[in-house]
């Protein structure tokens, strides 16, 4: 998300519609990084080039990131019912400690969830995928 301040407050809405253009300008000049690295110091702001009569100065900028497991798709873990990107019920935080594990049947689960299921007494001697009941084997 980005916020821009203008010298003409009344014309904000027209700025917003200009967004795509402005964004490409920013990435070309790689100015946003400079702005964020100096965020703590008072910064005069960065003037954007403009073909219109608006003079736009970027004073503040919030950068948001998003991550996703590549294998999971939009689904949730069939065992804990949480989104793949949220922590399983054992973990406090999601991440590399508890990655997705995909079986040969292409079903994916949180690592901790499927490990617990494989170890469950009702699932012996041979573990099955909780979704399709095929023999569980981790895909390469």
């Amino acid at each position, binding site marked *: 998300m980005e916020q821009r301040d203008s010298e003409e407050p009344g014309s904000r809405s027209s700025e917003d519609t200009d967004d795509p253009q402005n964004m490409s300008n920013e990435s070309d000049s790689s100015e946003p990084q400079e702005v964020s690295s100096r965020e703590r110091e008072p910064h005069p702001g960065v003037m954007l080039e403009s073909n219109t009569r608006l003079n736009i100065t970027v004073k503040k900028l919030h950068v948001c990131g998003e991550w996703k497991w590549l294998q999971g798709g939009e689904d949730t873990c069939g065992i804990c019912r949480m989104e793949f990107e949220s922590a399983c*019920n054992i973990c406090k935080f999601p991440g590399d400690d508890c990655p997705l594990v995909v079986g040969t049947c292409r079903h994916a689960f949180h690592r901790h969830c499927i490990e617990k299921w494989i170890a469950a007494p009702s699932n012996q001697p041979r573990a099955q995928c909780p979704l399709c009941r095929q023999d569980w084997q981790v895909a390469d």
Partner: protein
Amino acid sequence: MSNIALNRLQRECKEVVTNSEISETGIMIEILNENLTEIRGHIRGPPDTPYAGGSFDLDIKIPDQYPFSPPNVKFATKIWHPNVSSQTGVICLDILKDQWAASLTLRTVLLSIQALMCTPEPKDPQDAVVAKQYMDKPQVFKSTAEFWTLKFAKGSVPVNVDYQSRVDKLKDMGVREEEAISVLSCNNWDLNRATVYIFS
């Protein structure tokens, strides 16, 4: 209860409560205690079965290892069905035993039980007497199951006057209604055999 069980149950309860399909399928759950170890399930008797119109309650107990172990589910409402004990309500259903999978939920369990009400499995019975009647005397089974639905599950089929009069005769002899129904059902509604069974 472990954290994992509690977390998942909370999501499941939300799922059942918010799922609009529930009003169509007729399954519902009710939470009995705060830590979600005891839950009351409701199943509406499926149409075109002897259970149609009935409202069946189930006791659900959640084990500590849930969802890695199945929930413990039994009928709290008395039901006449080959795969349910007519005495205790215990259910014979593979997914509640060795065919449990961690991906199953309260919702899918209740839907499976509802499906079992539509298609009994007399070859794998929980109640041998009921199963035998189901196979040998399907008409008697049907009317008995309907009678039980009416008596115990607030069913809407008109009362079987013939059955009711035999129950009343046993009641006149001082037998509790529930026991009278049960013993008559187990004896294919033969009043003499039921009387002998109770008083000998």
